[in-house]
């Protein structure tokens, strides 16, 4: 109840001003009526007293502050605010000495205050309202700043994640180590492997930077990656890559499958010295693609101090949820010795 009141107050300007004036009315009423009992005439007096101040106060809040003070024209502002305050005090005196007889002819008012006293009231009220306006502006500023920094942070994180998911520096150096070995023994397939690596790098660095790429290019890059990883695997490892369906002219969000493939090698192939396996199967349906990957569950120690941790499954899920809210299918099946993931995502024509 209280909270909902404050929420409404925070959002409603008119309500804020009304609350302020109600408070001011109450305080002034207590001052004017003194310690004696509350008379009808005191209420009228206070009401008219406040009304005479309103033009001056709102001139300050609505015109002078936004028009002059916010633009750094301090001297002109001080000059005008002083004139406005003197006029306000003068208007108050004029009201209670002349106009009042026309408004409430039946009452007889005595203005208790001289010009100096009135000036004190006017200055106090002007100062309070000005400060209130500033504090509100300050709160708004802080809120905006918070929002901006939060957005910036999120943006940077997303970019970082995207970047990291694209290329693992270890993969690059491991591939180069493999190529170095092939060149040293003058293997006939060394040129082919170098072309694969350059093809894959070109894809990652230049093609996969947008929001969508040709499906056939993406699949080709995945194949390159798997072939390069095969270089590192032992003779007892079985690694297969299969595809069903026609990529045609489909477009796909790039590099969503890569972290999963990466994991298969990192935890499956690399985690076992005996017979390890990793199989990658892509099925292209109408407007969808399913990746079905499985590998042995190996054991590999997560080394501390490594700057590259790879993309966790949770991160991938977050990314999928952001890109295709509710329109993807992602399942993970774990047995004692195998690890199975299925990911289906929509394709664009």
């Amino acid at each position, binding site marked *: 109840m209280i909270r909902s009141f404050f929420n409404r107050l925070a959002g409603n300007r008119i309500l804020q001003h009304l609350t302020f004036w109600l408070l001011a009315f109450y305080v002034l009423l207590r001052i004017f009526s003194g310690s004696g009992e509350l008379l009808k005439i005191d209420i009228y007096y206070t009401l008219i007293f406040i009304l005479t101040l309103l033009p001056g106060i709102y001139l300050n809040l609505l015109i002078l502050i936004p028009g002059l003070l916010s633009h750094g024209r301090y001297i002109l502002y001080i000059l005008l605010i002083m004139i406005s305050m003197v006029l306000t005090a003068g208007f108050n005196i004029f009201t209670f000495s002349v106009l009042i007889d026309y408004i409430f002819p039946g009452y007889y008012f005595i203005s208790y205050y001289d010009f100096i006293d009135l000036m004190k009231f006017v200055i106090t009220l002007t100062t309070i309202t000005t400060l209130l306006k500033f504090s509100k502006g300050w709160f708004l500023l802080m809120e905006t700043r918070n929002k901006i920094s939060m957005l910036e942070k999120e943006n940077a994180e997303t970019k970082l994640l995207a970047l990291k998911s694209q290329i693992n520096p270890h993969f690059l150096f491991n591939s180069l180590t493999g190529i170095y070995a092939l060149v040293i023994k003058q293997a006939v397939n060394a040129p082919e492997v170098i072309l694969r690596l350059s093809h894959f790098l070109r894809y990652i660095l230049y093609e996969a930077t947008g929001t969508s790429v040709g499906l056939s290019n993406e699949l080709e890059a995945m194949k390159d990656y798997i072939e390069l990883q095969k270089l590192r695997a032992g003779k007892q490892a079985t690694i297969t890559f299969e595809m069903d369906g026609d990529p045609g002219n489909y477009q796909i969000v790039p590099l969503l499958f890569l972290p999963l493939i990466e994991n298969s090698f990192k935890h499956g192939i690399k*985690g076992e*010295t005996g017979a390890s396996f990793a199989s990658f199967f892509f099925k292209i349906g109408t407007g969808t693609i399913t990746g079905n990957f499985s590998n042995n569950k190996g054991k590999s*120690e997560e080394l501390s101090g490594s700057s590259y941790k790879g993309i966790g499954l949770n991160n991938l899920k977050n990314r999928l949820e952001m890109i295709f809210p509710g329109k993807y299918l992602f399942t993970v099946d774990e047995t004692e010795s195998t690890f199975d993931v299925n990911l289906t995502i929509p394709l664009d024509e």
Partner: protein
Amino acid sequence: MVEDEPLSQEVMISYIADIPVLELVKVCNDAIEATEVLRVTQIDLLFLDINLPKISGIRLLQTISNPPLVIFTTAYPEYAVQGFESDAVDYLVKPFPFERFLKAINKVTERFALKNVKTSGDVKIPEEPSGFLLLRVEKRVHKVNLSEIRYLEATGDYIKVFVADRCLIVHETFKSMADLLPRSYFIRVHKSFIIPIQRISYLEGNQVKVDDKLFPIGLTYKEELMKRLNLSTRRG
């Protein structure tokens, strides 16, 4: 050697085969296999990959009670600090050329000599250096006994190493060569000369006589030479 990737294994095997003093005992695919070999065989030097299946190379080294000398071979430069903390002789980041490998082996022979002195309890420095140096000259790796080195001379990008009756021309910087030689036996007396300190017969002005040859003494090297000679006379 502990290395799980076949291609890296092949490179290491060929490097090791090219160095006369190294004898490959076993190629292990993971830490568990290596532990078993270490338990039953006397191993002097271990080439250890870090990113291995099951247990990392660093962890393996921590679990061995009396570890041999270790050279880490890995594609990951970020573990170098951890690697050296575990008292490794060297840390090779894959892919590395044969020259870099050779340098690591030279560090090993130096350490090995040191280790033997320590275990024998003999702290007195013997007259003649006992170790050796591996130098690559074109396709061959020469084993050079430190005691046979007469002097070294820098010529451009190459270093002439005069050993007994031979002269080997090595492609190396003079600075890194100076670092390879044990400091207690060799001293640089000139921009272009390193001589064995024990063989000095006399000094004359800005020249020093070693065996039957006079060498110039460079200004910047003179102070160090005098200091070292004083120390050795006092010791003798």
